[in-house]
């Protein structure tokens, strides 16, 4: 499968982030798969939902079993996951970042 860099002739929806790709914006297109943003294609590590920093995927012990482009894009970094009540931190941060979830 080859991804082609194209200027968008019609508006499309990114298969990674599900957000709109506007006309004339550069997108990556593959036959039968769809389009994605250039920046979405470059995801090489997830974001820590607690501290907002990169999750440190290259050093993660799960790197071999984690399919980074195809997992939910928020994770938790080693530092935050080592906290005593990490899951509670995760929940608080999620509710802060997406207040609608807790509405």
């Amino acid at each position, binding site marked *: 499968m080859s991804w082609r860099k194209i200027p968008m002739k019609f508006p499309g929806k990114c298969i990674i982030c*599900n957000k709109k790709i506007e006309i004339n914006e550069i997108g990556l297109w593959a036959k039968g798969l769809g389009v994605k943003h250039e920046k979405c294609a470059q995801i090489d590590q*997830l974001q820590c*939902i607690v501290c907002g920093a990169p*999750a440190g995927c290259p050093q*993660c*012990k*799960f790197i071999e*079993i*984690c*399919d980074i482009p*195809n*997992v*939910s*894009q*928020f*994770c*938790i970094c080693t530092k935050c*996951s080592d906290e005593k009540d*990490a*899951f*509670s931190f*995760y*929940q608080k941060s*999620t*509710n802060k*970042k*997406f207040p*609608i*979830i*807790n*509405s």
Partner: protein
Amino acid sequence: MWSEKYRPRIISDMVGNEESRASIMEWFIKWKKGTKPILLVGPPGIGKTTIAYLVAKQFGYDMIGLNASDVRSKSRINEILTPALANVSVMGTPMIFIDEVDGIHGRSDFGGVSALIGILKEPTVPIVLAANSDTSDKMKSIKKAVKTIYFKKIPPRLLQVYLENILKKENAKLSPGSLIKVIDKSQGDIRSMINLTQSFVTGFNPQIETKFENINIEDGVNAFFKANSIEEARIILYSMQIDPREKINAFYSSIITSSIDNSTLAKYLEIISNADMLFGKIMKTQNWRLLRYLNDILIKLYQNDDRIRYSQYNISWPLLNRIRWDGAKIKSLSSIMAKKLHLSSSAFVTICLPFVLFCIKNKTLELELEETYADIIEKEIGLIQ
């Protein structure tokens, strides 16, 4: 079970897919009559069904839960959904949830998809659909009428945090190696991860060999008859995620072509007959809930019998060979003879061929044919009584 005990009570109890959860909440908050239904697409065990039940509870809807077997035929859809859609005030505030909507495919669709699309286009109540995949043609037509929200697998490290939280509450511990093993084997499926963890913690080490996770029909049938125990055979049977009709046919063709004694063959065929009758009943009544009993019938076929190997063809090799090669020769012979006798080929084979063979046998007829036909004529003469 821990998976039930720790089932999220509110949406913020869930883990992963934060953006998708937020999109669902937003959709429910903004929902009004005519709003496009939503389709939740994602791998199994990541919380699609759970979130549908949680939002229904949170927004005070009375959930009407259906699955693919309920929406296979138009009449069944109308029977279930028409009262809910027509009498909204009497039914309270209904919300429709159709799980595994991608389960309707090919011949199993008896007008259900088109009827469903009709309902999806004019929704009077919130409708939520869930599917594991949205790539089939049927799903493409459904997708046009809905807003799709994707659910992805959960990053393993986040699963670890979630699992450690459960272990802490249970005052239990798992070695780092087992923890990684559990997360790896569950492949992002939270439900199976929790079940597996409970199994490990309670001292039971379940068989989670990858070779049995999802096996093809040939390997499945061969491994089934080679299995060392009925438990192993059962795992293999459940791992054969194929069309039930194909599953029955595979066992039938493999058994019928094996060199087993008549009494064993009769026993096996009786079991396959029962499986076939069950499947026939499912197709006739469209009661797909009965499908869960199919494997319980087929497991009776288990016997560590290495004489049985997978075969695609449901007739024996000598007979298959005869049909393939002798059939072609007879067809060629009949087309020549049919021209001479001013008949159709099939009329010649059905009516005249036995008489012609008798005449050749009794030497009252001599045909001027190519030598290549001598073998087949001799063979056919040998077969006539």
